[in-house]
Every structure is written in structure tokens, then in C-alpha cells.
């Protein structure tokens, strides 16, 4: 059996190998994604994001245990940053997920961001598709430790959970644009620490100022992930959000938006590839960079020049 056939019947080894190919941008990965694509769109994809140290991995681990009790199979992709200097990475999310080891209904993959900004790796959304096609009913994506603008996960996941902890800032931080805005569910983790009530009140006050024309007002939940507290309510809320999305054409709208974004991104990649192949070989590219660098040519005129070659 070939790789894709094995992947579609949940062969874990095939899934692992397909992920590596997609991650490396291997020429064969296009074929894999083409064959897998019709089988996607089944799983609920849940994103978990938050600042470093807010407890994302621990929460994911506890949440997966909760979903396993509900007989859901779960795949996890956990993204950690690559070094901007060496390109190496230390992927440590598995440490917190040790007690999931040996469960055949759980698949965990660590992924380095490889220089991609936005909270995910370049290939993360394709990896989510592979996990979806492999038949997992729930796919969880954990972002790198996020700052204020790592909001990419919201486009990749149906349900975005933003983790916060007591002591993370005042009410002005809470009304800034960015990460808090993308939450479908807000979680104050480590809620046994002092300041939890205050933080929850600040987040509630922030939400009170907002409007929710689509009908979903993000709830603020409290958890203590290391002690398995609050996970059952969180899991219920995730399921509730999925039910919400599947009514009133919301899921269709989500997929439409996603299709548009992915199509545009693919077009950019493909256009770049064709340009490089036809009119912009590496020498010409370097030569133009030199001229731009020497202030003889500005970047926009250089780009027009290259594209004029395509038209002619």
C-alpha cells in the first residue's frame, strides 16, 4: 500500500512520514496533499495559544485526557520556535504530555516554526489536514508561546482557546487589539494563584465592551491544568462551540474564508516559483538585489521590471 492509502486508514507510521515530507516541502508532498484533500473537513480543529509559560502544553495534555474519556481520538501538533541563529530547535512540549504515551487514540507531533512568524510553522495548516484525513475526530494545534500578534492560529482552527494567567497585565492590556480578540474561549489557567478573580473580572469587563453579531460571546473559564480542574467544563464548551459552528451556515463560511486564504497563498507561492523559473534566475535576482542595495533602483521598480518580462 502506498503512503496515502496507509495514512487514510490511520497508519501512524504513514502519518508521521507524510508529515515529514510536507514539512520539508518535498516535491512528493504536493501529490500527498492533492490525494488527501478530499478526505479533509471532518475533524474539529482546536487551537491553543497564549504567552510562554501560561501552561499550554499542560492544558492540552489534561484536555486530551478528558476527551479520551469521551472516546474521541485526538491528534496534536505542538509548535515551538526555531533559533533565528542556527535554525535548530528544542521541542519540549512532549515533556508535559508524557501520560498520553502509549494511548493508541492519541498522536503527538512536535514542529519547529522554522523562521515562520505568526505562531505556527509554514506547513502547520497542511499537517492539520493530514491529521484530519487520518481520521482523528479532534485535532489540537498548540502555538509557540505567543505575544500580542501571533494570531494566525485563528485562521487554521475552528475553535481558538486563548490562555491567560493571573498577573498578566492590567485592563488596558485586556482591551488592546490582537491575541485576546481571536479567542472563542478565554481560559484563565493557574487559577489557584492570587489575582485569578481580578483577572477574570478584567477579561469579563473587556468582553462586555464588545459586540457579538454572530451570536457567540467568548466565555471566560478558569482551570488549574496541573490538577485537572476545570477541564470537563472546557471540553463541554469546545463541543458546544462546534455545535454552534455547525448551525446557521457558520462552518461553511469558515471553510470559504479558509479556502480563499489558502488559494491566495498557494497562488503567491506558485507565481513566485514560475517567476523564478522563467524570468528570475538566481543570478538576475542577486544582480537586482545589488542594484536595490546600491540605491540605483527601488524595490517596486525592480519588481515591475521583472513582471514586465512575463508579459512580453
Amino acid at each position, binding site marked *: 500500500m502506498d503512503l496515502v492509502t496507509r495514512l487514510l486508514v490511520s497508519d*501512524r507510521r504513514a502519518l508521521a512520514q507524510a508529515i515529514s515530507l510536507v514539512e520539508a516541502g518535498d516535491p512528493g508532498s504536493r501529490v500527498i496533499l492533492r490525494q488527501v484533500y478530499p478526505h479533509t473537513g471532518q475533524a474539529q480543529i482546536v487551537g491553543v495559544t497564549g504567552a510562554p509559560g501560561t501552561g499550554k502544553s499542560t492544558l492540552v495534555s489534561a484536555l486530551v485526557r478528558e476527551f479520551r474519556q469521551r472516546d474521541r481520538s485526538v491528534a496534536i501538533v505542538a509548535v515551538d520556535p526555531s533559533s533565528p541563529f*542556527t535554525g535548530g530547535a528544542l521541542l519540549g512540549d512532549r515533556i508535559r504530555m*508524557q501520560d498520553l504515551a502509549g494511548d493508541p487514540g492519541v498522536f503527538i507531533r512536535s514542529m519547529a516554526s522554522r523562521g515562520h512568524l505568526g505562531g505556527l510553522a509554514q506547513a502547520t495548516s497542511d499537517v492539520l489536514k493530514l491529521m484530519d484525513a487520518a481520521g482523528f475526530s479532534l485535532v489540537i494545534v498548540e502555538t509557540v508561546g505567543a505575544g500580542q500578534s501571533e494570531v494566525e492560529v485563528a485562521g487554521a482552527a475552528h475553535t481558538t482557546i486563548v490562555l491567560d494567567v493571573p498577573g498578566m497585565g492590567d485592563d488596558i492590556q485586556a482591551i488592546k487589539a490582537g491575541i485576546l480578540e481571536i479567542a472563542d474561549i478565554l481560559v484563565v489557567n493557574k487559577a489557584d494563584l492570587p489575582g485569578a478573580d481580578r483577572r477574570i473580572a478584567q477579561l469579563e469587563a473587556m468582553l462586555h465592551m464588545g459586540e457579538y453579531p454572530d451570536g457567540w460571546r467568548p466565555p471566560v473559564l478558569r482551570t488549574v491544568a496541573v490538577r485537572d480542574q476545570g477541564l470537563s467544563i472546557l471540553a463541554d464548551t469546545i463541543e458546544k462551540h462546534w455545535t454552534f459552528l455547525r448551525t446557521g451556515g457558520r462552518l461553511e463560511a469558515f471553510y470559504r474564508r479558509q479556502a480563499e486564504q489558502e488559494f491566495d497563498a498557494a497562488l503567491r507561492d506558485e507565481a513566485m516559483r514560475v517567476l523564478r523559473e522563467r524570468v528570475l534566475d538566481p543570478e538576475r535576482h542577486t544582480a537586482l538585489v545589488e542594484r536595490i542595495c546600491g540605491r540605483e533602483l527601488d524595490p517596486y521598480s525592480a519588481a515591475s521590471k521583472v513582471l514586465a518580462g512575463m508579459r512580453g
Partner: protein
Amino acid sequence: MERKIRVLVAKPGLDGHDRGAKVVARSLRDAGMEVVYTGLQQTPEMIVEAALQEDVDVIGLSILSGAHMTLLPRICDLLRQQGGEDILVVAGGIIPDEDVEPLQEAGVAAIYGPGTPSSEYVAFIREHVRQA
């Protein structure tokens, strides 16, 4: 994008000292590799399952407990049974000289004692890792 060397660094058995494993993990990271660190007290089954899910090229095992003659061959056996025989296995820790040869026969490609410079195992891994 070129294919990165992926390494699983794991501690089989019951000893609780992972400073060595962390130093090795850090040095492999600094050598440009992607290192998955799994933490303490891993069973052979957990290590092999993690290696296959992560599709790593190399497993680096750190063991100080003295149980290496039981645990390391077991890991190599499990890898062979599950189709992971092309994964390079290296080990470090407190391993007496007379155990080195039997461990190599069992499938551990290289064994490093305390004080090994990182350049040594980095070069070994680069040279012996499977070709994609």
C-alpha cells in the same frame, strides 16, 4: 527547504538526573538540529512510540542508572520490530567499557562517556544519519 536532522533525546529508566540530557539537547539545537526532548523516566515503549510519531532520524539516550544492558537493547529490538531500524541510536552516560561492545552489537551505534566534547557526537550524527 532542506530536510532538518530531527533527534529525540530521551532518558530511559528511573534515574532522575537530566542535566546531561539537557546539555546534549541544547548542543544539538545549537548545531542546527531539531531536538524533541521527552523528559525523564521513559519506558522503551514510550521512547520508540515517540520516535516513530516524531519521525526522527536519531535517538539519543541518556542513562546513568546502570540499567543500560536491559533498556538499550530492548529499545533497539522494539525499533526493529516496528520498522524503525534505519533510526540511528546513540547513548551517553555512565557505561562501563566492557559493556560497550555488547551494546554496539545490540544496535547502539555510538556510546559517549562524561566529558565528551559536543563536536564529537555532532560530527558522528551528521556522518551516520540516514539519508532522506
